């Protein structure tokens, strides 16, 4: 006898749902009235579904609710502790801004000392320095200047010293 696969095909193609409200489908009902094979298929599937659905369910143990309560309290406490540890966003921003400002002020101060000035090696002296200028006769003169340029000017402006330098003394 040739196997009838009509209902099986309908199930596979999705044109018939296996939750099978077949009673509402006239064509299917007509077919399964005549076809024992397809009727058996539908019966089997219904039987399997109801067996699975009727399978004895397990229930949570008696201590479930209590254990859940304890876990919940522990989780809440952990969150509260984290919140204390966590610095709010605005405060964090203030901290960052203060840090950046401190670094910038420090940089500006160091900058003002001339550390980063390229001319330092030529004629800039970082702080006023006292020089002792000596003539050929070992006559000395003390001059205070903060740059080589100023030192030259001091020498030029110092009449006595200039005369001695010019006289080759």
């Amino acid at each position: 006898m040739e196997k009838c696969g009509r209902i099986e095909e309908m199930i596979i193609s999705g044109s018939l749902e296996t939750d099978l409200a077949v009673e509402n489908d006239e064509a299917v009902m007509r077919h399964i009235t005549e076809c024992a094979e397809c009727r058996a298929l539908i019966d089997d599937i219904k039987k399997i579904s109801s067996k699975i659905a009727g399978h004895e369910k397990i229930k949570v143990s008696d201590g479930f609710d209590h254990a859940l309560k304890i876990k919940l309290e522990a989780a809440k406490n952990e969150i509260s502790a984290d919140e204390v540890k966590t610095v709010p966003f605005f405060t964090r921003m203030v901290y960052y801004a203060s840090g950046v400002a401190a670094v910038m002020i420090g940089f500006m101060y160091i900058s003002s000392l001339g550390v980063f000035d390229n001319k330092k090696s030529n004629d800039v002296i970082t702080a006023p320095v006292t020089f002792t200028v000596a003539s050929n006769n070992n006559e000395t003169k003390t001059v205070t200047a903060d740059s080589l340029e100023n030192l030259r000017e001091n020498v030029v402006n110092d009449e006595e010293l200039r005369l001695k330098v010019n006289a080759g003394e």
Partner: protein
Amino acid sequence: MADLKRLSDEELMFRFQKGDDSAYNEIVERYKNKLLNHIFYYMKDREWAEDIVQDTFVRVYLNKDKYKEIAKVSTWIYTIAINLAKTALSRNGKMNAFSITGKDGENDYEIKDKHTTTDGDVLKNELSDVIMSSIDELEEKFREIVMLRDVDEMSYEEIAALLKIPTGTVKSRLNRARLNLRDALSEYIR
């Protein structure tokens, strides 16, 4: 409390988000056994499954504000639970051992009442075991849908949302799973 029982899951969640902890308790009450049955299929260990279910409810409590009404509460809770179960299993290297029957073929799902066992019960339990073993042998994508539909009694739409697949795919997988089960169980169900 009587009022809460009449509310939908989504209404309960809304109340809970507003600070009503009794609504949360009602959600726990509605889902704890359902979730345990579902998660048990992943874990194969009742205590471990209970742990996962408790952790799920802790997450629900702590993340209540993350729930948006666009999804069903059941979908949200099941998603949390299944993710926790899969993470726990993969940490223990048991992800591939996802099967309904217990170790060495022992089926610890079945809760048998030793005092009232009759010949009819023995046959019934045997058939039940065979059905569960057959489900166990299905491909995971089929097995999961059979469990969600027939054990958890979810709608096609809920299953589709939970597994992030189209409703049509849910139906076709369920159909194929049932046909496979029929082939495997033909000699037991007649």
